[in-house]
């Protein structure tokens, strides 16, 4: 389509037209992603100008340290949303993972058993949700809501109060800081690395595997994906399983960084995750979006929180209002881009 449109100009200046065409194709295709990155950059720079302390490089790495589990959850959520579903159970899953692992560690179970066990629990949990959604034809919204209730409820049954983790392995993981090479006075913690690694895995899954392509196909039109002979059932259930795995992983990171487990952890995190995914340029109807965008969505969220912290006088509720307004703006941007793509 783009080629036909630029045909008259090609006579005028072929090289320039090619560049324009490439630009147009790529900017329109990645428009929401580029906007997300731009807004993150603007927010960060503005924050740095307002509060010079924010210019320290460590502040940037703190975004990753503080939002590691949010990023993990959002990655799983991106896959589910790309496929046209939604997963509301992530916050509950984090609470359950932290509580269960803290309780097990207190009983003296080795962390090398606990961590795989939690991951298996997440996978089974996600798989069950996916199966209920697919085979019983339950709305994803309702089924994962049930998952949220269930996970939090079980966390409360395990313990009504917060359990502290005193395990030496967890403590080592939590307190060992890794210096960042080439940049002075900066560090991250070991669990911080989990989310970026998972992001790479997710990028590979989304763009270089059959699973990823099928996800996009189902998100665009489940019926036609089915008619094309794509494995719809398997992919649907797998995406929820992946999200369950991600939330269990996020729960482990959460429990390591706080060294505690509690049923009330991560309340409302599903909303932050959905907002981050939307801010990252993924359509909530599914079929269009990018996992990389989700990273920047989470970073924007983190930046808003940092700016509020650096300000000190602004109250915490501005985070919510800010995230709400940004979500609105992004929906506007998205509809603009996708409208263009469809009609132009």
């Amino acid at each position, binding site marked *: 389509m783009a080629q036909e449109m630029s045909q008259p100009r090609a006579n005028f200046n072929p090289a320039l037209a090619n560049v324009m065409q490439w630009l147009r194709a790529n900017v329109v295709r990645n428009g929401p992603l580029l906007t997300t990155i731009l807004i993150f950059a603007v927010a960060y720079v503005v924050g740095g100008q307002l509060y010079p302390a924010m210019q320290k490089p460590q502040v940037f790495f703190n975004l990753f340290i503080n939002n590691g589990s949010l990023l993990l959850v959002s990655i799983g959520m991106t896959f589910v949303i790309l496929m046209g579903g939604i997963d509301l159970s992530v916050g509950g899953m984090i609470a359950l993972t932290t509580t269960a692992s803290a309780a097990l560690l207190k009983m003296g179970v080795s962390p090398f058993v606990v961590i795989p066990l939690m991951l298996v629990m997440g996978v089974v949990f996600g798989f069950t949700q996916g199966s209920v959604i697919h085979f019983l034809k339950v709305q994803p*919204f*309702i089924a994962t*809501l049930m998952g949220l209730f269930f996970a939090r*409820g079980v966390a409360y*049954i395990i313990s009504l109060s917060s359990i502290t983790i005193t395990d030496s392995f967890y403590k080592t993981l939590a307190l060992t800081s890794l210096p960042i090479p080439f940049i002075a006075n900066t560090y991250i913690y070991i669990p911080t690395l989990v989310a970026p690694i998972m992001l790479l895995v997710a990028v590979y899954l989304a763009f270089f595997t059959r699973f990823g392509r099928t996800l996009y196909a189902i998100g665009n039109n489940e019926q036609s994906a089915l008619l094309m002979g794509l494995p719809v059932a398997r992919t649907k259930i797998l995406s929820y399983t992946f999200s369950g795995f991600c939330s269990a992983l996020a729960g482990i990171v959460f429990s390591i960084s706080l060294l505690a487990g509690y049923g009330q952890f991560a309340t409302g995190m599903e909303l932050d995750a959905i907002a981050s995914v939307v801010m990252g340029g993924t359509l909530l109807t599914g079929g269009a979006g990018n996992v990389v965008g989700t990273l920047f969505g989470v970073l924007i969220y983190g930046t808003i929180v940092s700016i509020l912290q650096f300000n000190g006088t602004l109250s915490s*509720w501005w985070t*919510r209002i800010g995230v709400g307004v940004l*979500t609105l703006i992004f*929906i506007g941007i998205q509809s603009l881009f996708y409208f263009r793509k469809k009609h132009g």
Partner: protein
Amino acid sequence: MTENLSTAKGASESPASAQTMGRFRPPRVPLFKRVRESALFWPLAALALILVFDAFYAPSFFRIEIQDGHLYGNLIDVVNNAAPLMLVAIGMTLVIATGGIDLSVGAVIAISAAMGAVLINPALGNQLITNDILTRDATNTPLPLIVLADLAAGTLCGLWNGFLVSRGRIQPMVATLILMVAGRGIAQLITNGQIMTIYYTPYFWFGNGFILGLPVAIYIVVGVLILAWFVVRKTSIGLFIESVGLNAKSSYYTGINEKNVKLFAYTFCGFCGAIAGLILSSNLHSSDANNIGLNYELDAILAVVMGGTLMSGGRFSLVASAIGALVIWTFTITVYTVGVPANALLAAKAVLVLAVILLYSDYTRRLLNRFERTDRKTAPSTDVEQRV
């Protein structure tokens, strides 16, 4: 749909009924089926099931006493506590019937409650609040104005949602998600981040007052239910809502202003949320922007689904949703009575949702249909029925 087809065929095969009933009389449907097809059947069955459970395991559940001329007891508690949820469920039913969803009702409740609390004891801006102002049994605004402001705030929220959905063409889930995230922030902004305790006695009438021995909240619910029923069933709006829910585009082509129908549904939902906020804050004597009406959107959706309204829109029943809300609270209070810790209630609720999901799934329906078919073997079965 296949069932309609089969009953129509069955009717045509019984000439006697066709003669006596005339052309447009509805075909005879077996009693069991007629009861089962009724929108009220499932929620009432669930309610009965829980009450039967109570009769065996917690007989004290049914005890009702009269103190100071008011009725007291678990059943009254259920109705009184369920009132806000019933209101929200009524509003949510209309929204879901248009094929949408409103996630922001919890936030609307918080905003409405915050509005009421602030008008009684102003906390806007960074004004210093002394204990002296807060504990006075007085108000800075007359009560009717407070109620009006509460309702206006909620309705405005609903209007905003409606505009985003109908004019902004944003999917309902995202559009209302915005207010869900931002709404509690706005409520905190209104109360300046404080948990405001209310000491103004006349305000408590909505949540704790009694008329003729029954809580005021019940009358409010019945009033709103009658109002909604009247608007929906005695005017064409109900029909429009159902047709928009079934197919928005074809409704548009038949000349229905689908935008305004949606706008109406969301605004009404906001209005219901506002009343719920008023009752809740009046009942709790406080307004905590973070926790008031928490998870109400989820409970309301659950109530609506239990009432048999499909999440994809279309046919709806207001009364069934209200009973759905009643089921949720009967369940909750039963769980408390039996002695399950409050925090573990969530897991119990999940089991309830699972049961509802299984009851409403295609498998169960198919099973029931099969049961029914073997039940009336004498009735001639058509090919269509067999194939389906």
